[in-house]
C-alpha cells in the first residue's frame, strides 16, 4: 500500500528483526533472506548493556 514494505523476519537463534524494503521487493513466507548491516547505522553494546563508543 505505501512506499515501503516492512518485513518481519527471524534470525537462526530466534531474534525477531524488522527490515524496511522498497515496495517492489517481494518475499514469500518462509523464504531465507540474506541481509547486511550498515556499520554507520549499527551500534554495539557490551555485556552491561552500555554502548561501546570510541
Amino acid at each position: 500500500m505505501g512506499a515501503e514494505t516492512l518485513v518481519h523476519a527471524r534470525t537462526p537463534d530466534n531474534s525477531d528483526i524488522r527490515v524496511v524494503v522498497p515496495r517492489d521487493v517481494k518475499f514469500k513466507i518462509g523464504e531465507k533472506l540474506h541481509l547486511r548491516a550498515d556499520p554507520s547505522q549499527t551500534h554495539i553494546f557490551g555485556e552491561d548493556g552500555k554502548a561501546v563508543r570510541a
Partner: protein
Amino acid sequence: MSTIEARKITKRFGDFVAVRDADLSVKAGEVVCLLGPSGCGKTTTLRMIAGLERVTSGDIIIGGKRMNELSPEKRDIAMVFQFYALYPALNVADNIAMPLHYEKISKTERDRRVHRVAEILHLSDVLDRMPGQVSEGEKQRIAVARAIVREPNCFLFDEPLSRLDVELRHSMRGQIKEVLSNLSKATVIVTHDQLEALTMADRIAIMRDGIIEQIGTPHQVFTKPANVFVASFIGTPQMNLVKGKLEGMNGSKAMIQFGGEKVELEVNPAVSKLKPSQVTLASGPAPSRRSSVVPRIRSPLRPS
C-alpha cells in the same frame, strides 16, 4: 530568569523508589521532554518540579531559587494536565482568566491578557462559548491559554496531547511548539509518545524504572543511544537488537557469532578493548542508502 533544575532528586513511596537521583536542567526557552514507558517515573518527576509531590531527597531549583519547601502556587509555574480541567460553568474567556483572579490586576489588564492569548491560540471566536460547546482541540488550546495567560516562570505539561485524535495531535504539536518558542520559558513535557517528544523537544530525557537513562537532542538520542534500553525504545519501527558473542578482532572488524554463524562487522575502535564476551548489536530497520560501503556481513534469515 526562567530555568528549571532538578538536582539528584529521589522520590520514595515506602519501599518503592519511583525516581532515583534524577538530574535535569532546562534552560530558558528550552523544551525538554520526559519520555518513557508507563510507570517509569516521568510524571512523578514532573509533579516534584511542580510541588505536587515532595522530594524525598535532592533539590528543585526554579529561576535560581530552591523550591523544595514551597507549595505549588508559590513556585510561579503553570501546569497543563492531560484532562484539561476546564470549569464547565464558566465560558472560555472566564476559564482562561481564572488564574488572574488571584492576582491584583485591573479588569482592563485581565481582558487585555485574555484577548492576547486567545489570539495567539486562535480562540478569539469562541471566547463566549461554554466548554461543552467547543471541540477537543479547542479545549486543549484553552488549557494552554490558561497556563500562559499568567506569564509564569516556566511551563509543565503532563501528556498534553494524549486525548486528541492522531490528526489533531499532529497539528497541535506544531502549534504548541510555536507558542512555546515565542515565550522563551523553560518547559518540561511528559509524554510516552516518542513522535511527540522527537518533534516538540529541544532535548529528550529517556526514563526507565525511575532512572534517567539518557538526555540529549532528538538526533543524539536516535543516532547514539547510550544503552540497549534506549536503542530498543527509540525509533519506529524499533531498532533490531540481536545478541551475539564477540570472538575477537580482525583489524578494524569485529568477529561476532550470531546463532551459529560468524560475521565480520566494521566497528568503532573502542570495541577492540572489549574482551571476548556477549554483545548486543542494534541496527535500524531502514535500508542503507550507501550499499557500496556495506561490508561482507551476511546472516541467513527467515521471514516469520
